[in-house]
């Protein structure tokens, strides 16, 4: 068990080190996320004022789109240098490969969110300070839910045709509950009359989703990635 | 059977109140369309299945004819 975690950590560190050198993903994803926020802001502004509760939706749409971009790019990198195959051939548990890739992706996405959430708070006057821990928990569990299924599907698609368009096509319907939970929980916090108990219930649903789908992904990764 | 119940009483047009108009939508077109759609969708699907099966059988026949012609 500890060897799996150690191996996963090694794999994640490798990815993060590669990323730290080029910083391609972090810069482009942050920039893309910011553009997303702007485009949606323009779409949802009436007479110079953002529609109430648009901020929660915009936040999670941005996470969805930037996450998909980051996923695609991470595994494209793997494909180009054939490292995924090398990883799978290595005497490492399949599970560790999955966890390592997931961990690296999560670090990237959390970094992007750390910048985007305050920006959204600024642009939409969203009450970030109202229940910061709850908001953080929602973001973490939602991102984990999205990332867990996304990592599995993106890895699966590495050698498939039309992989760029197929990733969102197969990923988005499956992560619908994550986004329902995330948006509803976040807007419960941001609403003029905040419903924190509601937000906590959504958080519970998200955590449950994460538990089930991370387990399913761990279980499925082995058989799916076998040649 | 839902039917139109309002008849103009006088020589002028009396507009129907908005929510009453909704309740007076005749049901028949909806029911008819729904059943028609079910039939059409099922028939189209079965036909498509039929067509695809025929195509595969034709190709199998083609291939076995070619295989019969060549010595393996």
């Amino acid at each position, binding site marked *: 068990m500890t060897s799996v975690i150690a191996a996963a950590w090694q794999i994640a560190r490798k990815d993060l080190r590669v990323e730290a050198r080029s910083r391609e993903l972090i810069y482009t994803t942050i920039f893309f996320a910011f553009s997303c926020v702007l485009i949606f802001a323009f779409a949802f502004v009436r007479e110079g004022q953002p529609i109430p509760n648009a901020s929660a939706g915009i936040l999670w749409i941005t996470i969805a789109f930037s996450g998909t971009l980051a996923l695609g790019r991470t595994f494209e990198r793997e494909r180009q240098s054939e490292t995924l195959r090398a990883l799978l051939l290595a005497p490492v548990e399949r599970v560790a490969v999955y966890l390592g890739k997931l961990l690296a992706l999560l670090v990237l996405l959390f970094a992007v969110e750390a910048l985007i959430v305050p920006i959204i708070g600024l642009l939409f006057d969203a009450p970030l300070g109202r229940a910061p821990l709850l908001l953080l928990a929602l973001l973490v569990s939602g991102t984990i839910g999205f990332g867990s*299924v996304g990592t*599995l*599907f993106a890895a*699966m*698609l590495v*050698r*498939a*045709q*039309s*992989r760029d368009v*197929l990733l969102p*096509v*197969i990923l*988005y*319907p*499956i992560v*619908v*509950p994550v986004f*329902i*939970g995330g948006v*509803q929980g976040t807007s419960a916090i941001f609403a003029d009359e905040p419903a924190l108990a509601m937000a906590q*219930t*959504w958080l519970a*649903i998200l955590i449950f*989703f994460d538990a*089930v*789908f991370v387990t*399913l992904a761990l279980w*499925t990764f082995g*058989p*799916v990635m076998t040649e | *059977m*839902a039917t139109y119940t309002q008849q103009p009483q006088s020589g002028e047009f009396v507009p129907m109140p908005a929510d009453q108009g*909704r309740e007076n*939508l005749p*049901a*028949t077109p*909806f*029911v008819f*369309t*729904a*059943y028609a*759609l*079910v039939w059409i*969708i*099922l028939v189209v*699907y*079965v036909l498509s*299945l039929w067509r*695809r*099966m025929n195509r*595969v*059988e034709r*190709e*199998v026949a083609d*291939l*076995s004819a*070619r*295989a019969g012609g060549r010595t393996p």
Partner: protein
Amino acid sequence: MSSNSRFVPAALGLALVMFAAAPFVINTAPYESTMGLVQRIFYFHFPAAMSLFAAAFTCGIASLIYLRTRSARADQIAVAGAELAVVFGIIVLTTGPLWARKTWGIWWDWDAKLTSTLVMWLIFSSYLLLRRFGGPGSEMLSAAVGFFGMMLVPFVYVSVNFWRTLHPKTSVVPNLPAPMLVPALWCLTAFLLLFISLLLLRARLEASRSDLDRVALALED
């Protein structure tokens, strides 16, 4: 396979007969008090929804089996299940709004049942797209999608249910009075017979296709 080839035409034939008789059977049912004529849509909408679920779970379970055993037969059934889920899904998603438009005045509402059905339909449509455009090796990938899709259904339902609801509660069917229950069960039987026979036919088509591919490949050598 020979028991198969006798079962399918028999089931299909029976289903067709039942479908033909359905309007008459449905006519014996009384009109529903508040919804009147338009409630008749229920007699096709409800069995189609049940067939959609049957197809989705068939695909999900077959996908699971394929993930564990790589059985070609499981994969063929999974594909058939996904395709039928899309077909029955189209029926449910078109008849439902027609019913809703007359009864509640709106074509769509984001309630639990509608949204879960739509998401399920999307999942199995994405399954088919993956099979069609994913290139070689998509069997395994789509098995993961099919399996995850099936596991997802309760989540979507619970989350949307929690969010809002407008649909009649599921308890409508068990509480149906007898004169309405009979046509409902009649149509349900017809649909399920149709589902099973189409499933087997479609699975057979898939098997023939992979045989064809194999022979074609062998010939090229």
